[in-house]
């Protein structure tokens, strides 16, 4: 099968995928977890527990009308933190749980509920970036009468990361999950997007899929894994970046969401652990783990044998568009799909020079923008011009800054431009 693709982007010197993909290892539950009560877009969950409360594995600790949050450890509530700083900088309430040593019997409140109820009470949120509660996503799909469901099996940067490992090891569950999601979203057709380069690892996948689901191999170019480019590669359709694929009748959900949906609906298991890829300095090839939500990054890094002392930068996501964080003691939340480690020697401190109008950024921009103009307008304070040149169509994939011979931090300038324009807009209201 030929890999579908898009124009622009980067054919990166991606680390040669290992001969054998690393299996999804289950990291033993830590002694202690911190669970922020907001791990999704929308309102914060209200805490349902008090300090000292005894918790079973999977019991509800937070709830809002579209999302729920669960105890990923059985034990007791050690502390209720009112303003815990997330990696994004936002401060939200958090529950810290002291484990009791073993999991014990799991909470059974999900039994007997309808599928949609199970989806709500499983605490599923979708994707490694947008974090929309799956219930809300399904409702949106129904409202827009979407025709097409696309399951995203691509991971930023790594072909042999945890998403490929999950597709390899849990093909049957994922296939069941896709069927469940297809029924719930009322979609007529379903596609499963995977990297063409990952197909050698995915021997049993095609057989596991029902006939109604098409396997779609895509290119390994960066940023193929983004919704916009999956849609344009598979359906040859585009939608304004400020809107959503549902507007053109397409719902995109993650392969891990499909797995979670199968676990919730068929086995009454809530969303308690997250698949993550650990890569970068200190590991030879990506390590793939299943980690209890709320485990600290430090413990995860120690588990795979990374010495935390020489770490210069810890990135949630890939090296091209992941977010650098300020602390190793942040917990794994539902939006963490990858940890990328750089040693102090690998951290770059670029010295930008004048733009030479080489146009390299224009050639790689998958959104067909003029990044050097957007960045230059923002740097010079000409925000009206940045807006007129579609700055909000930028998906901040980082391709432009990666190729820039003048080392201009274009993503940073574009983010500045967007935030200034957004605050001007809200002031104008």
């Amino acid at each position, binding site marked *: 099968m030929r890999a579908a693709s898009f124009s622009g982007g980067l054919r990166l010197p991606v680390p040669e995928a290992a001969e054998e993909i690393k299996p999804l290892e289950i990291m033993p539950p830590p002694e202690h977890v911190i669970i922020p009560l907001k791990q999704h877009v929308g309102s914060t969950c209200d805490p349902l527990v008090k300090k000292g409360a005894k918790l079973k594995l999977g019991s509800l600790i937070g709830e809002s009308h579209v999302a729920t949050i669960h105890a990923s450890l059985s034990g007791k509530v050690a502390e209720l933190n009112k303003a815990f700083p997330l990696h994004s900088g936002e401060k939200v309430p958090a529950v810290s749980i002291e484990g009791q040593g073993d999991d014990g019997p799991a909470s059974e409140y999900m039994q007997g509920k309808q599928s949609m109820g199970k989806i709500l009470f499983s605490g599923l949120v979708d994707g490694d970036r947008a974090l929309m509660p799956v219930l809300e996503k399904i409702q949106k799909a129904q409202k827009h009468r979407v025709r097409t469901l696309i399951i995203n099996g691509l991971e930023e940067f790594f072909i042999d990361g945890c998403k490929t490992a999950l597709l390899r090891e849990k093909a049957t569950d994922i296939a069941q999950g896709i069927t469940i999601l297809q029924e719930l979203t009322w979609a007529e057709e379903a596609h499963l997007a995977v990297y063409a380069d990952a197909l050698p690892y995915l021997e049993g996948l095609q057989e596991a899929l029902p006939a109604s689901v098409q396997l779609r191999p895509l290119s390994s170019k960066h940023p193929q894994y983004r919704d916009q480019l999956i849609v344009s590669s598979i359906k040859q359709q585009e939608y304004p*970046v400020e809107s959503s694929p549902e507007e053109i009748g397409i719902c995109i959900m993650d392969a891990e969401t499909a797995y979670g949906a199968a676990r919730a609906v068929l086995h009454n298991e809530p969303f308690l652990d997250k698949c993550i890829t650990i890569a970068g300095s200190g590991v030879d090839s990506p390590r793939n783990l299943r980690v209890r939500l709320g485990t600290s990054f430090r413990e995860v890094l120690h588990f795979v044998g990374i010495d935390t002392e020489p770490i210069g930068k810890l990135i949630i996501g890939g*090296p091209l568009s992941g977010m650098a964080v300020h602390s190793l003691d942040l917990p794994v939340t539902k939006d963490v799909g990858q940890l990328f480690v750089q040693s*102090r020697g690998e951290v*770059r401190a670029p010295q930008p020079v004048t733009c*030479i109008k*080489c146009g390299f950024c224009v050639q790689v921009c998958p959104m067909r923008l003029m990044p050097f103009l957007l960045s230059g307008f923002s740097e010079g304070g000409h925000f009206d011009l940045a807006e007129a040149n579609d700055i909000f169509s930028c998906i901040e994939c980082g391709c432009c800054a990666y190729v820039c011979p*003048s080392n201009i931090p274009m993503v940073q300038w574009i983010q500045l431009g967007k935030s200034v324009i957004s605050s001007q807009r809200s002031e104008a209201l």
Partner: protein
Amino acid sequence: MNDLRLVVSPWPHVHSENSVAGIMRDVLIALAPAFLFGIFIFGLDVVRVALIAVVSAVAWEAATQKLTSRELTYTDLSAATSGLILAMILPPTIPWWTILIGTLIMVILGKEVYGGFGSNPFNPVLVAWVVLQMSFPDYMSQWIVPGDNPAVTAAPMEVLKEQGPSFAAQYFSYADLFLGRTAGFIGQVSSLMLLIGGIYLLWRKTINWRIPLSYLLGVFVFTGLFWLLGDGPYADPLFHLFAGGTMIGAFFLATDLPSSPVTPQGMILFGLAAGILTAILRMWGAWAFGAYYAILILSLATPFLDKIAPEVYGR
């Protein structure tokens, strides 16, 4: 719980290692075959011209930057590269002081007054070349004639202009034109060597294929049409491709990054228009070296051509 040793900065956290100096180094490498061929065919005068041009370009740039209290940028190799490209389109006999005037104009009027390399609207090399050509036309056409072709003491394009196509075809074989066994500027005569350099730049992805290819196509198709259908004596399109600076124009002048368009459509229109204008100036204009004028003139259209961009995703 903040770890003070963790660096927090916006993505991307890795870089291609592209740099301005890297691009310039590629261009210098690409110029090498044609430059060495120039030494081979015209002698050590070529080294003299290149040395004066490169050293003075770097010196003028450093002096201007010192005087205006700006950072010195000679390490990005852009001044040295511009100096060498200018030398490539000067005759081997040109007096030293003429070169100094050329590089002074190139560095100061060509780019520093606009804010330095990157902000220049025109190709500084061509600005300097046009000033020299206008001011010192005699010095700009004193040739060294390669040994085994003494019958003609002028460059092929001048012969075409003055004596017509049949005369030119009689004295310059395609092999001479292609290999560069003719009178001409020191690094411009050999289409073969320039083509090797150009292919190197394309292979390294330092230049985009759109401008050089559409430029060559513009020259070839336009001159070809007149040669086939035109009413009157016109040189054949291969003559136009291999003589008069077409190759150096395509790969080293029209591709000047700051002054050429960046959008795919813009680049192709730029190349085609510059190619056609080159042919027009050669066939009906006053000067033999229409290529250089045409490329300079087209950079006036760059801001407009950059407006012809593909539709933004989803719009």
